[in-house]
């Protein structure tokens, strides 16, 4: 039951909420940050990129339909398959699923928005601009052509001297900002803003899947970000990380890429499986069988998928024991997948299944994905893997897993949630035609491709001789590809036409159990007129009046007296309301920041480094300006203490503080999750360092380190004292003691600055031959990494001191230093580990 009284006038409250949550009109909508708007933009943009990727696929199939064709040249063909893979993986699959999650998660967990709305908007613009930059290379005829995995040395400047690889490296890294933003934001939102009573054991399965996917993004993307940075540094500045003669190793790229690349498959699969786990119970009319086992399977997948990457590299000459090790791990990942498949089948078996349109796509998923999973187990076996490596068999397997495991559930999900977003139902006739053509065309294309591969046809060849036994199979695959394209076109047509011609949907048209179906269709920008309390896993099945109570303002936070966007902050474990989160409204800062980053990207592509440097400074300025309007800033949270409690709860003891009046909250969680991602990047660099040491054929290290050890140790002293001071002032703030707060912050910042300057001097005096030696190039990167973090910690501490002077941080506003504190801890840990592993340990290696 709700613990709040009904709002005096639900209509007036709804009008007030609508005004507060509205996007700006006209061009002003570019400043929108609301999760509904951003989620839809992600999905629509993703579908546009999907169409482009699909056209590229059709060009590939046209070229391969008959032997010895020269419709496109070998060079163009290289660009086509590279861009097809890159677009589908980076610009379609991940963003469209992120968009779906961004759109749905707050609605499912009973919140009004994600906890960092401006980050959502920044992520979208980074994705949009990054995607446009990558696509522009195709229009200019200078697209990358080394494959979507960009193996070195093929993608290095020696063999790819044009700008194609640079477009990929810079563009994809730009797009990855968006993925990381979504990963961090979704994690924190799910953990910190669920409806009251929605404990982890009552959370919708879709949210479990998204939580694990988001954490996988946090840990999985940094290796690729690092690899892209290193390769771009090699190409632009000559730092030889992947060049054998200078002590590098091209296999390092493969390791870093697949450290990302294999989890990436599950990052794509898990949200799609989450859709399946949501839809099957609804259309079976019963709760899912084995909720706990599915949670176990999802967590299991999240971990094990990070231990499989080497199975992409079985042919590169890895010791047998290591191969067996990864082969076993690759087979183990079938276990959690099987758990889910059996749970879905058991639910279908025990339910009364209604085969509406979304279920058709779910059925298609089950067939196609299970087939793809089985060929995956085959590929985990080393001898078989060697036989079919780099053949069309692998291409067929990959498409069975990705199209079956992602595209089919995605379309099922789109059909399922379409009435929620538009208020209208799709056409069952067009939809069924679309499904059967897609399903038939897909299997004709890719089932036969297994045979083409077993007959020895390699991947990435732009044509083939006749008489090798591949002719008919390729022709049929191409015909299947075009049938599939017609099916997809029908689906997209149906999705488009239903906005005008679809029947009006009734409330909760599928009789679903989750909270999003308690909303209006289409939902208001603020989602819930009042924020619900949840007492079961199936709130709408077990409390049919919940939707009415929400709409009538009888649940929590029905009024918005502060005039700001508000939602509840809840405890991560027990989902108890702990604070009120006042969320930022429309803002141009995300767009401006993304535009500045786009200029950085373009200026790096054109090797105009002065402009790049200028825009980096501009971007930092914009981001700091953004950070200024946070926490206790008047535009972010009113300073009037009367507004610091839930207006509806004033008469009770249950008064909730604003986030800025507490010492914990989403901001702090966001910092910690960001640092986990940062830590994954650092660990990847550490891996690269040890990998080059142990595996690079011509690795060499000087007898003496490039920097005096005692100076490095001395340099760490002021930073350690700064952390101690910062930690102490945070503890005092928690106890309500703000005496000399500003002075302590300035002192801490000064020590940070001293450390930064000492490190800078060390960096300047280090005799690093970074263009001739991979060893020195890695040291150069680690020193730059440390400098960047030391500078950031110092600047943020100085800003805290300024904010104390403005009254944004005080004994009653103790929150912000608690957010900055983990950065200091992280930096100090990384500094001392780096000194130990990058500078002390090598002294024991001797010259090798």
């Amino acid at each position: 039951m709700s613990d709040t009284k009904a709002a005096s006038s639900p209509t007036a409250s709804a009008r007030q909420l609508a005004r507060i949550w509205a996007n700006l009109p006209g061009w002003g909508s570019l400043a929108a940050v609301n999760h509904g708007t951003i989620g839809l933009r992600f999905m629509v943009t993703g579908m546009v990129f999907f169409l482009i990727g699909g056209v590229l696929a059709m060009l590939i199939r046209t070229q391969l339909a008959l032997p010895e064709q020269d419709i496109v040249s070998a060079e163009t063909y290289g660009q086509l398959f590279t861009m097809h893979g890159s677009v589908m993986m980076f610009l379609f699959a991940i963003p469209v699923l992120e968009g779906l999650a961004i759109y749905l998660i707050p609605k499912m967990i009973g919140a009004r928005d994600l906890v960092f709305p401006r980050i959502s908007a920044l992520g979208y613009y980074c994705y949009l601009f990054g995607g446009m930059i990558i696509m522009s290379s195709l229009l200019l005829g200078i697209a990358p052509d080394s494959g979507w995995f960009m193996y070195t040395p093929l993608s290095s400047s020696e063999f790819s001297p044009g700008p194609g690889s640079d477009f990929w490296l810079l563009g994809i890294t730009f797009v990855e900002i968006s993925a990381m933003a979504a990963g961090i934001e979704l994690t924190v939102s799910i953990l910190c803003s669920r409806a009251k009573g929605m404990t982890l054991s009552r959370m919708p399965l879709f949210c479990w899947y998204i939580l694990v996917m988001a954490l996988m993004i946090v840990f999985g993307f940094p290796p690729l970000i690092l690899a892209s940075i290193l390769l771009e540094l090699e190409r632009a500045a000559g730092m030889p990380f992947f060049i054998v003669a200078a002590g590098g190793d091209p296999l390092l790229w493969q390791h870093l890429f697949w450290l990302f690349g294999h989890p990436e498959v599950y990052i794509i699969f898990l949200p799609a499986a989450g859709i399946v786990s949501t839809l099957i119970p609804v259309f079976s009319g019963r709760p899912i069988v084995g909720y706990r086992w599915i949670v176990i399977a999802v967590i299991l997948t999240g971990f094990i998928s990070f231990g499989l990457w080497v199975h992409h590299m079985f042919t590169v000459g890895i010791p047998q024991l290591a191969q067996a090790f990864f082969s076993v791990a690759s087979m183990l990942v079938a276990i959690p997948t099987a758990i889910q498949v059996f749970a879905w089948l058991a639910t279908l078996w025990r339910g009364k299944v209604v085969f509406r349109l979304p279920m058709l796509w779910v059925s298609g998923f089950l067939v196609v994905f299970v087939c793809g999973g089985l060929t995956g187990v085959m590929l985990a076996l080393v001898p078989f893997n060697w036989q079919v490596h780099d053949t069309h068999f692998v291409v067929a397997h990959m498409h069975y897993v990705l199209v079956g495991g992602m595209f089919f559930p995605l379309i099922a999900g789109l059909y399922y949630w379409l009435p929620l977003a538009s208020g209208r139902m799709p056409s069952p006739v067009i939809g069924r035609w679309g499904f059967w053509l897609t399903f038939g065309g897909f299997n004709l294309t890719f089932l036969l491709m297994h045979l083409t591969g077993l007959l020895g046809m390699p991947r990435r060849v732009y044509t083939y001789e006749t008489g090798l036994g591949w002719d008919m199979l390729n022709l049929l695959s191409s015909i299947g590809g075009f049938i599939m394209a017609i099916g997809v076109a029908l689906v997209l047509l149906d999705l488009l036409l239903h906005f005008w011609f679809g029947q009006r949907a009734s409330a909760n048209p599928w009789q679903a159990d989750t909270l999003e179906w308690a909303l209006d269709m289409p939902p208001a920008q603020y989602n819930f007129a009042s924020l619900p309390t949840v007492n079961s896993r199936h709130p709408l099945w077990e409390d049919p009046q919940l939707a009415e109570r929400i709409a009538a303002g009888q649940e929590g936070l029905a009024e918005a007296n502060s005039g700001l966007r508000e939602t509840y902050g809840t405890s991560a474990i027990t989902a108890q309301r702990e604070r009120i989160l006042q969320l930022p409204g429309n803002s141009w800062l995300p767009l401006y920041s993304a535009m500045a980053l786009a200029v950085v990207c373009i200026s790096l592509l054109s090797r105009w480094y002065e402009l790049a440097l200028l825009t980096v400074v501009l971007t930092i300025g914009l981001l700091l300006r953004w950070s200024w309007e946070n926490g206790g800033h008047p535009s972010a949270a009113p300073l009037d203490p009367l507004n610091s409690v839930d207006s509806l709860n004033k008469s009770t003891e249950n008064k909730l503080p604003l986030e800025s009046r507490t010492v914990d909250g989403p901001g702090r969680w966001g910092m910690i999750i960001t640092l986990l991602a940062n830590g994954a990047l650092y660990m990847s660099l550490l891996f690269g360092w040890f990998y080059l040491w142990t595996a690079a054929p011509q690795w060499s290290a000087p007898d003496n380190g490039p920097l005096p050890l005692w100076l490095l140790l001395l340099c760490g002293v002021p930073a350690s004292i700064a952390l101690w001071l910062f930690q102490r002032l945070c503890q005092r703030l928690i106890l309500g003691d703000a005496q000399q707060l500003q002075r302590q912050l300035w002192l801490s910042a000064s020590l940070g600055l001293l450390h930064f300057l000492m490190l800078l001097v060390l960096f300047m005096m280090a005799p690093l031959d970074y263009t001739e030696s991979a060893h020195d190039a890695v040291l150069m990167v680690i020193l730059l990494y440390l400098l960047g973090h030391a500078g950031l910690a110092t600047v943020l501490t100085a800003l805290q001191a300024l904010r104390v002077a403005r009254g944004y941080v005080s004994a009653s506003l103790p929150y912000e230093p608690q957010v900055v504190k983990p950065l200091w801890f992280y930096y100090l840990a990384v500094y001392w580990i780096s000194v130990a592993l990058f500078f002390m340990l090598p002294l024991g290696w001797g010259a090798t």
Partner: protein
Amino acid sequence: MNNVRNNKEMIQPTWFAPAHPAQIVMGFVIWSIWFIAMYGGLSVVCQLAPPDVEQGPLTWLNGGLLTFALLVIALLLFLAWRSGRYCASRHKASEEAVGFERFVGYVSTVLYLIAAVATLAGTLPVLVLPPCN
């Protein structure tokens, strides 16, 4: 009020206690550390002091890897037993108060057990394959 009190009780345990949700991921965090140590250790030792290829799988390195894995498996089984015992004790309590705790206990127990099995499966190749060949 009862709910509030019970929820407060749920927050009390430290991350190491069987009631804490951190236990849900702890099994595979341990597995991950074992995985990194095993693969990383193998690579480093093969670089610095590779055992004689003629010895086949019966090398000090394989013996070390096996011993390490058995210790990890023992730890995981102990933690699974502890979580299982906790879960069973929660079964005796009422549904309303301990549904979440039971969930944590059950999921943790299964994940600890699977982590132990995954560790064992990953270790088996050391019985038949030479380490650095």
